């Protein structure tokens, strides 16, 4: 799951296929993801991974890094 998300962020959101994203890299504060890519990421998780993400779960704590997203999806029982 983590690798799949890392690939999606690098290739589809950043348009840099060979970009390596560390699991603790800050996706939000660094300017890596803007608000549009953030919305695309949620859409991707909901549509392609078939995981419902309620609005109140889209928080900095849950989406700050790949590790945080992973932990969140774990808690969602995925």
């Amino acid at each position: 799951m983590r690798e799949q998300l890392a690939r999606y962020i690098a290739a589809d959101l950043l348009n840099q296929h060979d970009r390596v994203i560390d699991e603790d890299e800050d996706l939000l504060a660094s300017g890596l993801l803007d608000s549009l890519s953030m919305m695309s990421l949620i859409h991707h998780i909901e549509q392609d991974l078939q995981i419902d993400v309620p609005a109140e779960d889209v928080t900095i704590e849950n989406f700050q890094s790949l590790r945080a997203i992973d932990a969140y999806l774990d808690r969602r029982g995925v």
Partner: protein
Amino acid sequence: MLYLLPHAIDRAAMRSPEREAIRYAGTSLSYAALVERADRLAGLLRAEGVRRGDRVGIHAGKGIAAAVALYGIMKAGAAYVPLDPSAPPARQAFIVRDCGIRHVVTEPPRLSALRLLLAEGVDVASVVGVDAPAPNVRGFSWTDVDAHPVVAHDPDLVEMDLAYVLYTSGSTGTPKGVAHSHRSALAFARVAADTYGFRPDDRLSNHAPLHFDLSTMDYFSSALAGATTVIIPDAHTRVPASYAALIETERLTVLYAVPLALTHLLLHGALDKRDLSSVRWVLFGGEPFPTRYLRALMAALPGARFSNVYGPTEVNGVTYWVVPPLAPDDDAPIPIGQPYQNVEVRIAGDDGAVVADGEPGELLVRTPTMMRGYWGRPDLDSRVFWKHQVVGHFEDVYLRTGDLVRRREDGLLEFHGRKDRQIKARGYRVELDEVEVALGSHPAVESAAAYGVPDEDGSLHIEATVTLRDGRHVTPDALRTHVAGSLPRYAVPVRLDVVPAMPRTSTGKVDRRALAARARERAPTAEGT
């Protein structure tokens, strides 16, 4: 007397030194502390040779350092120039060269990004905020700033001196710098503070980044009122539910943002879980707010009043409309409204002659909130300034906004599009010509057409179509990477199509309308659902 922007914080510090001026991520600066830090920074910049009229860059994310930087730079007598740290280094370097920046204020987390900029070979003499930026560049840490003596000096400025230069997309392929004086900036800060009745107990949200003109109202109107500016961290601007939580915990009273950000707050902010009763004003500007989302947001924040703020960066804000309750079934566009006090509007044809009542024409404005001009570009100035004798032989200057408007029967102005090819892509102003120049700079590209395509959330994104030279090849991804080297991210086409030949109109021009229509059909928009 208050005639320079820093006078506003000086006055607030005199009246209520302990009141919070700036808050950011749980830390804050009182007005007294803000003035002191800005004075020390000004002293250091003066010691480094900064003088009246110089341009000093700010290379910083949102936060306390940026707030101190803008006041410190102005107190040194210089104009501040925000450098968007997320823009390509080549674009930042263009701006540094274009307006002759020799001094930059930054902060430690930006060091590696700053080094990429310095590696572009710009002529920067000193950097404040990190102590070892690069060989041959003098560096000073923020500790050095706070240890620098406050030197009494009079920068000898008048209100017509420059306060800041904001760079925006330019149609010839390079950005252009909109240069504002203390007078024009203060004129807008005053009219906003008066119109919306800002008070010392207000807490204004600073949502827009520093290189975006919306940020000036948050800082300067707030300082005039002696109120608190709460800087929204970058991460919160990307995550609506966290932004909503911040509005609640910080008890914000005034929100000012682009409609897209407010739409995301509405759709993804989980607002029903929050107590947002502290909010008394929601101001929005930069692009049209889809009526159905505005109506829903008004219902979600019943205690707040809502106002449109209209005006290109060149004139700050010039018209507004305090939105009355909206009919449940009427999705007619929100008008841009009526002029603020002390603003004259003129709806005119190409010759400057006023059009007949109710006819669409270009909006010209005469206002104290007008820029001095585009930095180093008298050719552009002569195109946008329209000179006219209003009284006697005295020449008055109007700004040609490039926006087409119409006056409704009730007197309110409504927006009817652009005269040129400028669009607002997700709140940011982009010249489509600049996108096409960037695409055309790739050696494989023969011709390029860029156009705006409506999004589900009522904003626009950019798509483009290119044809290639005989025998040359480039993938859409490689081409997007190429333009991402010179354009800010919001201007990079989201989708690129390579076609054998462009559709043409009957007169042989590239039919961008047909391309945009094709793109619209592909992506169903909220308008159609």
